[in-house]
């Protein structure tokens, strides 16, 4: 019976094995290449996504800054400006006074308070709006926040309150219920190096924090560039003249593999300072 069954010759088997090896090798190489491309694509997507997110954070932080040409230090929120670092007075919230229990105590209605977080004593400062009169202009008077309490409610069924005890100087006069109070914090953005790479870092200056990574890795030296522009769009070195800030973020993927230079992506945004009137 076996003598009548057909089989393969050695040459056929060898040829089949070689063809199979060649095809398998090709598929394996194709898989490796595809995997490399997919990984690179995913890394590039992540890079673009994080650059966009970082750009939005920077934009949201800087858009509310106030500058006033020739104004007082309290009117200018850009404190130091460098090509890859900025220190600024960030807005952290706003509330409306619902009660005035004392000369240095104000209570904000919780229902009207808007911000990322509650005010913090020692870390934040309150800017209280003081309306002008025939002799003086409107102003926002800064005061240190000494204590913060949330136990006492607002009167008249207005619900929970946030009671701030403020420093006594400078004095405030004729405050009335309904007056807005802004909560501010000194912040810093800068390019810094850690673990052999460059990152965009942020820290609360007023809280004495260490720098924390916000976005990265960025390219060395040129990963985070700031340009300060005046009302005409020209670069300016005068902090009180800044009307917009151009932010350039240049990121790179974590690892490119092989010896190839890591791909880079760049995102440029111009932030108009909304509290810096052109005139």
């Amino acid at each position, binding site marked *: 019976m076996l003598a009548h069954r057909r089989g393969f010759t050695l040459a056929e088997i060898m040829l089949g094995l070689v063809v199979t090896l060649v095809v398998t090798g090709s*598929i394996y190489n194709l*898989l490796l290449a595809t995997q490399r491309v997919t990984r690179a694509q995913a890394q590039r*997507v992540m890079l673009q996504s994080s650059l*966009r997110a970082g750009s939005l954070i920077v934009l949201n932080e800087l858009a509310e800054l106030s500058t006033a040409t020739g104004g007082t230090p309290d009117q200018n929120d850009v404190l130091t400006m460098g090509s890859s670092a900025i220190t600024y007075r960030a807005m952290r919230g*706003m509330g409306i006074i619902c009660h005035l229990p004392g000369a240095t105590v104000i209570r904000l209605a919780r229902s009207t308070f808007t911000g990322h977080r509650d005010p913090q004593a020692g870390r934040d400062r309150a800017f209280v709006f003081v*309306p002008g009169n025939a002799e003086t202009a*409107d102003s926002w008077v800064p005061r240190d926040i000494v204590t913060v309490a949330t136990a006492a409610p607002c009167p008249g069924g207005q619900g929970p309150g946030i009671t701030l005890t403020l420093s006594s100087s400078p004095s405030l006069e004729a405050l009335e219920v*309904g007056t807005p109070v802004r909560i501010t914090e000194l912040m810093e953005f800068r390019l810094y190096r850690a673990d052999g790479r460059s990152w965009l870092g942020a820290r609360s200056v007023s809280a004495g924090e260490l720098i924390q990574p916000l976005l990265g890795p960025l390219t060395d030296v040129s990963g985070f560039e700031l340009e300060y522009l005046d009302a005409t769009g020209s670069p300016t070195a005068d902090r009180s003249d800044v009307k917009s800030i151009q932010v350039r973020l240049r990121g790179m993927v974590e690892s490119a593999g092989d010896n190839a230079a890591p791909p880079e992506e760049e995102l440029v945004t111009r932030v108009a300072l909304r509290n810096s009137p052109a005139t």
Partner: protein
Amino acid sequence: MISSSPGSRHRRLPHVQGESGVALVAAVFALTLIGALVASSFFAGRLEQQSGQNVLFSGQAREAAEAGLAEAMATVNAALLEDLPVGGVPLDLGTVAVGEEVTVHSKIARLTSRLFLIRAQGTRHDASGAALATRTLGMLVQLVASGAPPQAEAEDQMGVSRLAERGWVGLY
């Protein structure tokens, strides 16, 4: 010419049934592999697209809120504001479409005798009307004499002006 007889078909059938091979399995495996590669490529692309879309929607909501503030500043007048009670219920300025599937809802509240807060919430909707992104902005405005002070006060001409300092507010 192809001819067949019942007898010859009968003879060949056992031979065909007896053949073994991996063609179908290999083809299915190859198709699955190619499908997975294409799907992973599409997945990366989709992620990128969604990420970009979210930023776009957020920007649209933000711009709608800005437009709402500008629209409110252009439409409210002193007479309207003077009728508002201090600390009372805000005046609803309504919802306006500012683009395809983008709306803004504005309100104005009286904080003190001369200070007001305009609140504009921009929203980017999907086709079914569900909110994809929202952004709320505020503007502190006040009543001011619209002409030279002595003359304006004499003629009782009042206008609406944003606070010169820190009038724009990001709300959450």
